[in-house]
């Protein structure tokens, strides 16, 4: 391959990278997209969001058929063909990544497969996946190098029985006993899958609740369900060491309720993700990278080097594909001379667990910590006809409002499909809607989406589906 030049170079083809490349191309730029993966799409499409959702769907089917037996519809125990399940999952991924390749071709975005590192402020050296290397000179660049699963020094990653999310999604086998280190979104999603596939799950979390950062009452229904389903859930507990033995991985714990040691067939390490800012020789381009590996940017996603931008996981939390995609458009538009700006009011987060947990905007914890005068409307799904007909009653929708203006400032939802319900709250936050706007908007009945309006009515005091003591 000959050396290349690009008006705009995009490093990384995850959701942020491909969005940036496509947007820049659509704005008339000549774009070169560099990525080391076998297929476009980055972690999200290949070993993240998408394959995990395929497996979570399988888990949901298993759970629902089992639970329905109590209500008069019984199935036999599931016969799980891991190879076919894996092939289906890979097929979904392949279809999406193939679609991306087509989208790139249609836009004449040239794709280089290989690992890129900066050599100067205007040049990238790419170690080609096919062998050899190529230099890419560029006018402007967007770094979308993403993140990788964090590791723990005392857990031997060399042992094949120790896996990260990527390994878990490969679905090699279903262990008898699985230890999930980390009670965040990724760990709990994988726990959901492996639990339904038959593994006995133990979750260990360093902090005092699952999915730290979300309000405790929002996580509570999930915590209650998994503590019943899983073998053990240890909070305020850390893993002190792992000793690989032929019969299993002997794990020593440090926590009040955990045993001193226990033996597991596999360990899934899901203790967060580490940005890849330090892995691309950014310093040769003069780009600042902080000690954690993040690349600082301003709200136009510009790094300290004005013609180089960075987006997505590599610029900071939350490490979410949808955040990266929006940042991508801003960066591409700024490069194309538009005065775009990343000033969103809320970035939703979703755990696709069972039940799902979703939140956006200010949490109650944050509001308290910041001294914000807020009010809240809570609607328990036990009063939702739609939820009950799904065989579920533990969900809850909580919406937070500015006490003075009644304007929505945040929302937390737990229950089936919470991830789909949160969008309404995000739109309401962006539009500056207040409780009356949401409550007076007719929601179809019976749906789970009604619960957002009901929560707003509960705040307003106009709800009739619950009896709440009169507000003073």
């Amino acid at each position, binding site marked *: 391959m000959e050396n290349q030049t690009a008006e705009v170079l995009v490093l990384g083809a995850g959701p942020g990278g491909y969005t940036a490349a496509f947007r820049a191309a659509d704005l008339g730029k000549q774009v070169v997209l560099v990525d080391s993966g076998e297929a476009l799409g980055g972690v999200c499409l290949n070993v993240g969001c998408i394959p995990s959702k395929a497996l979570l769907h399988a888990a949901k089917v298993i759970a629902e058929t089992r639970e329905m037996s109590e209500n008069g519809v019984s199935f036999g125990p599931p016969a799980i063909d891991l190879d076919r399940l894996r092939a289906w999952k890979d097929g979904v991924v392949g279809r999406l990544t193939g679609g991306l390749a087509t989208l790139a071709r249609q836009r004449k975005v040239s794709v280089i497969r290989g690992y890129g590192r900066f050599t*100067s402020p205007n040049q990238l050296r790419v170690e080609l996946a096919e062998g050899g290397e190529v230099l890419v000179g560029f006018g402007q660049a967007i770094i979308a190098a993403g993140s990788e699963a964090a590791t723990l020094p005392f857990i031997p990653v060399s042992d094949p029985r120790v896996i990260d999310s990527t390994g878990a999604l490969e679905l090699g086998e279903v262990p008898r006993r699985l230890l999930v280190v980390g009670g965040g979104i990724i760990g709990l999603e994988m726990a959901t899958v492996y639990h339904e596939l038959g593994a006995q799950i133990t979750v260990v979390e360093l902090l005092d609740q699952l999915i730290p950062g979300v309000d405790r009452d929002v996580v509570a229904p999930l915590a209650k369900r998994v503590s019943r389903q899983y073998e053990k859930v240890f909070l305020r507990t850390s893993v002190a060491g792992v000793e690989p033995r032929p019969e299993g991985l002997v794990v020593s714990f440090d926590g009040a309720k955990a045993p001193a040691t226990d033996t597991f067939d596999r360990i899934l390490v899901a203790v967060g993700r580490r940005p890849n800012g330090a892995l691309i020789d950014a310093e040769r381009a*003069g780009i600042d990278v902080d000690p954690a590996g993040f690349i600082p940017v301003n709200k136009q996603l*510009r790094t*300290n080097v*004005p013609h180089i931008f960075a987006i997505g996981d590599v610029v900071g939390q939350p490490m979410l594909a949808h955040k990266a995609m929006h940042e991508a458009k801003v960066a591409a538009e700024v490069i194309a001379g538009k*005065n775009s700006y990343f*000033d*969103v009011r809320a970035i939703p987060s979703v755990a696709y667990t069972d039940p799902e947990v979703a939140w956006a905007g200010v949490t109650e914890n944050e509001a308290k910590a910041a001294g914000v005068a807020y009010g809240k409307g809570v609607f328990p799904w036990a009063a939702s006809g739609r939820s009950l007909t799904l065989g579920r009653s533990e969900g809850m929708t909580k919406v937070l409002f500015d006490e003075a203006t009644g304007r929505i400032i945040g929302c937390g939802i737990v229950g089936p499909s919470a991830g789909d319900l949160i969008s309404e709250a995000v739109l309401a936050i962006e539009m500056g809607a207040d409780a009356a706007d949401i409550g007076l908007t007719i929601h179809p009945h019976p749906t789970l989406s009604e619960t957002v309006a009901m929560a707003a009515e509960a705040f307003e005091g106009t709800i009739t589906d619950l009896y709440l003591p009169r507000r003073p």
Partner: protein
Amino acid sequence: MATATEVSVPDLGDFADVPVIEIHVAPGDVVNNEDPLVTLESDKATMDIPSPGAGTVRELRIKVGDLVSRGSPILLLDTEGAAVEPPPLTDQQEPPVLDEGDLAAAEEPARRSAAAAETHAAVGGPPVTAVDSGPPADFDGVHASPGVRRLARELDLDLTTLSGTGPKGRITKDDVVGAVRGPADGAAATAPAAAAGAGIPEVPAQDFSKFGPVEVRPLTRIQRLSGPALHRSWLNVPHVTHDDEADITDLDAYRRELDTAAKAEGYRVTLLAFLMKASVSALREFPKFNSSLTPEKDALIYKGYYHLGVAVDTPEGLVVPVIRDVDRKGITELSRELGATSARVREGKLDPADLQGACFTISSLGGIGGTSFTPIVNAPEVAILGVVRSKMAPVWDGSAFVPRLMLPLSLSYDHRVIDGALAARFVRYLCQLLEDIRRLVL
């Protein structure tokens, strides 16, 4: 090593197919960065296209008279080093979004264009030193939807300085557009606009302060009221104006006699009183001129009264008081009433009733000058008579040229109601009345 760069027309805003009116350089000329290369002329402005960098003109790609748009090639420039992208025009509609730092960035090789020939030279290009423009203001706490926030970014407008007119103080798209257009246009937007909803394109806003000092003065109350009414008439009535001349030599002599007598009694006798009497006679003879279209526009309403509007120029603007029952009043009485009404107009003491009920209007500029003009029909009236200054002219009487005092008349009429032949007859009849004083008095 010198490389040739094609310089093309940068983003011109909304302009396209703009003619080249001047070329300032010829092949072999040495130009510096920002030197004007060519001048383009749109219907709104002339614009110099500056050189995007220093170099020597190798070849022209356009000639005077060519129509160009964004991206049209202008010339080939031999430059030292890398190709450059054109900097933005200095005469752009949009507010500038580039500052000096960005211009520096535009000139350095980082922004080489795809057309640049020396692609391989770019590999390992020199380090760049462009300056960050600095982030614009945060919109924290601003009540505006994402789309409005983006528009504000595009227009370089700080939303924190704006107060919204939407529900609960929400900043709307209109607020943003209004803020960018400036206070003059903002005020106009709130006035009742005749064109609103008519699908007529608005005249684009202009920032005149770019061209020199300006001052904004609000329209007078009369102008704010009369403007939309005139606009409404202009848009609704298919206008035709018919011109003729009346020989008023004898009439004027008679008028002077009366005026001399009147002066002693403290009023004046002007031509206007005669025009009013003549008009009423013409309206009687041609009743269509004393009609209005029904709202359904399928019938004419004929009026059995003769109230005439008289356009009066005041320092505050145009006012049209109505003199009632002109058919029942003589020249003397009309002259007295005109004098009194004019005084009340000047003192601003007119009642709304004084401005209502006209059948036909006369607009006289005779005291000022002119040869003809196109008065706007005061709908729902169907015609208006304009007169300008009379002048002495040689008129052939069959054997010789004789000096006669000629009065130009301009009748504008609603062509939906009146056709050209009828208008010509009406005006001719009017002229004959004015020419033959006896017929007028009868």
